[in-house]
């Protein structure tokens, strides 16, 4: 299958290894990956901060950039949720009726990584090898807007060498919430503190999730604690194999030791 990769603005700019891993994984599974060069952002940050009107051209750019794609995959539950639940509405309100219909159709062909692997490609064992103790944080939008359910866990269980440990209070928000982390920095930090305590309590080496944004928040906190536990995106774990050094290690360390 020809898969268009939506890197998302955040991954593309500060965590390129996550998009790289997604591409490596899909190619290893025998699919052709294309990266539409006109892509930028899904518009969620603007919509969720109240800049609904300003989001219109961003969403329009996204819909046009992926117009011809057969299937779109993004390593971000949050962005995919926005594409599913917000984009068409934003365009419709902005008077872009025709483009709104296109956005709705595009949303139907857009998938979060774990959903694409399990539901569309029908695989849970992607042939990965990752010899680490890992805990999984289910991120709010993946959990409650996309209903990814246990798909990421099934994928992780099939990874050779990986020891999966359950995260207490997994379904509680990490406190990121986009601009919430800045607008309500103290409350966000209080939520993060509890999340980190739960993660450290598992004695996992790695905390993984399907959203680079939540991981940036959690990883940023863990890094400040010099805890030794790091955050690694689900795509990076699934892209790792015995033969090849995992792609993020090849480019740059995900989080400092």
């Amino acid at each position, binding site marked *: 299958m020809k898969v268009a990769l939506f*890197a998302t603005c955040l991954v593309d700019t500060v965590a390129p290894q996550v998009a790289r891993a997604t591409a490596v994984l899909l190619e290893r599974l025998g699919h052709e990956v294309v990266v539409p060069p006109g892509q930028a952002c899904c518009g969620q940050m*603007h919509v969720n901060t*109240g*800049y609904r009107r300003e989001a219109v051209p961003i969403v329009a750019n996204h819909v046009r950039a992926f117009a011809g794609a057969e299937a779109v995959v993004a390593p971000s539950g949050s962005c995919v949720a926005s594409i599913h639940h917000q984009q068409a509405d934003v365009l419709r309100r902005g008077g872009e009726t025709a483009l709104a219909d296109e956005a709705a159709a595009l949303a139907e062909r857009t998938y979060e990584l774990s959903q694409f692997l399990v539901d569309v490609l029908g695989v849970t064992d992607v042939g990965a090898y990752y010899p680490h103790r890992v805990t999984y944080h289910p991120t709010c939008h993946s959990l*409650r807007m996309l209903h990814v359910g246990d798909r990421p866990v099934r994928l992780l269980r099939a990874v050779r060498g990986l020891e999966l440990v359950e995260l207490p209070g997994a*379904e509680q928000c990490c406190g990121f919430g986009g601009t919430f982390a800045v607008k*309500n*920095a103290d409350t966000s930090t209080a939520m993060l503190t509890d999340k980190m305590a739960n993660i450290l309590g598992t004695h996992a080496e790695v905390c993984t999730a399907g959203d680079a944004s939540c991981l940036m928040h959690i990883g940023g906190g863990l890094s400040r604690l010099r805890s030794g536990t790091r955050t690694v995106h689900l795509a990076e774990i699934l892209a790792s194999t015995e033969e090849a050094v995992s792609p993020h290690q090849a*480019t740059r360390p995900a989080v400092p030791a």
Partner: protein
Amino acid sequence: MTVFLGLPTAPRGVGNLRGDQPFPDAARTALRDGQLRANLGHATSTIRAKRAAVVGEVPDWAQLRAAGAALKRATMARLDEHLLALEEQVTARGGTVHWARDANEANEIVTRLVRATGSDEVVKVKSMATQEIGLNEALEAAGIAAHETDLAELIVQLGHDKPSHILVPAIHKNRAEIREIFLREMPAVDPELTDEPRQLAMAARAHLRERFLRARVAISGANFAVAKTGTLAVVESEGNGRMCLTLPETLITVMGIEKLVPTWRDLEVFLQLLPRSSTGERMNPYTSLWAGVTPGDGPQEFHLVLLDNGRTATLADEIGREALHCIRCSACLNVCPVYERTGGHAYGSVYPGPIGAVLSPQLTGVEDNASLPYASSLCGACYEVCPVAIDIPSILVHLRAEHVEAQERTTVEALGFRWLAKAMSNPRLWHAAQKAAGLGRFLARGKPTMPAALPPPASKWTRTRDLPTPPKETFTQAWLREHGG
């Protein structure tokens, strides 16, 4: 009969819908209170588990929830007709209906009615509507003492405090703190009182019994009103409400106009949804239903005050109006990670938590509670747990947009978002912006994270978290280089 067809919002200077500080500032104070966080964490996790267990045993919960949402939506679509039907029924059964546009009018009506009885004190059933309009304060100013009879409301009142939770107003207090309040404020209390729950309850009981038997006027809210039969309903756990609803000579009920259900049969759905969602009980211990007056039985005079106070303005907003579906169960408070850490006082309104964050700004006008729609990480736990499926996250986002669009002056934030929007809708500009972000590498000087001392607004992030240093090349640039355009 007067029906006001304008769209008034709750007036300033009266009632309890506005805080003194924006949410982030009020939250900062609460976050420093370790005792508060411990009390809240314990209480919310206990009630979450109870609710989950009793909801889990109802096989058709999803259908019940959908029925509740549909009933609310249908009722709101014809609210005017239902309200007129209710007025007709209440009047036919010997009650008197009063219409109050806002808090001031409602307080005036109730004060006048109490004065007419010659009484200078009233007993109160726990009621959010009367808390909302600041009725106790208004009565006090008129020389009338209002005694709260719900145990938690009593604790808050005796403690000269404000409620911090819709269902458990004293959730922020533990047993030891309650004992202190009783010893200090309750006349004739046993000085040997311990903080054992039974002892505390017995002390409150002795204190309240005397009030119930003395009171000639009672004031209540209403959980539901059946339009077709003129029946009012109060559901509660302690029986104190029933004492107030049956013993005094005069009963005055203040009810928000959104509390209606069309028919008696509709109650069935809500009487299942409410107790399981709120107290985690299969059924609440006391359900009191009354219609008008019955000669020789119960209050001989009944007044119903129908309160707008920003509700029709809320109803006029096609997205925000869903907040009026709320049945005040407070399940959203108990699951909200923000509420759990800040408590209710940080929200400044009698309606705290996720539902308060969408209801208060709509009742007051969004400019008066502008920080509340942002007091959420949009995690969605509130929507998931709401027994009438109010999509709180979507309303929060909608109200944020209303706030942004209503701003008259261009803020630095707005400039930033506009500039970013320009870049994010133009690939060439976007790549240039990404390159600019890459300049963070200079600040980082080869380290994997940027320095902690970044200037505002980034400092709000870097005070507690490291920001990753942007890589030399973005993913799309690298891909383009490797694969060609």
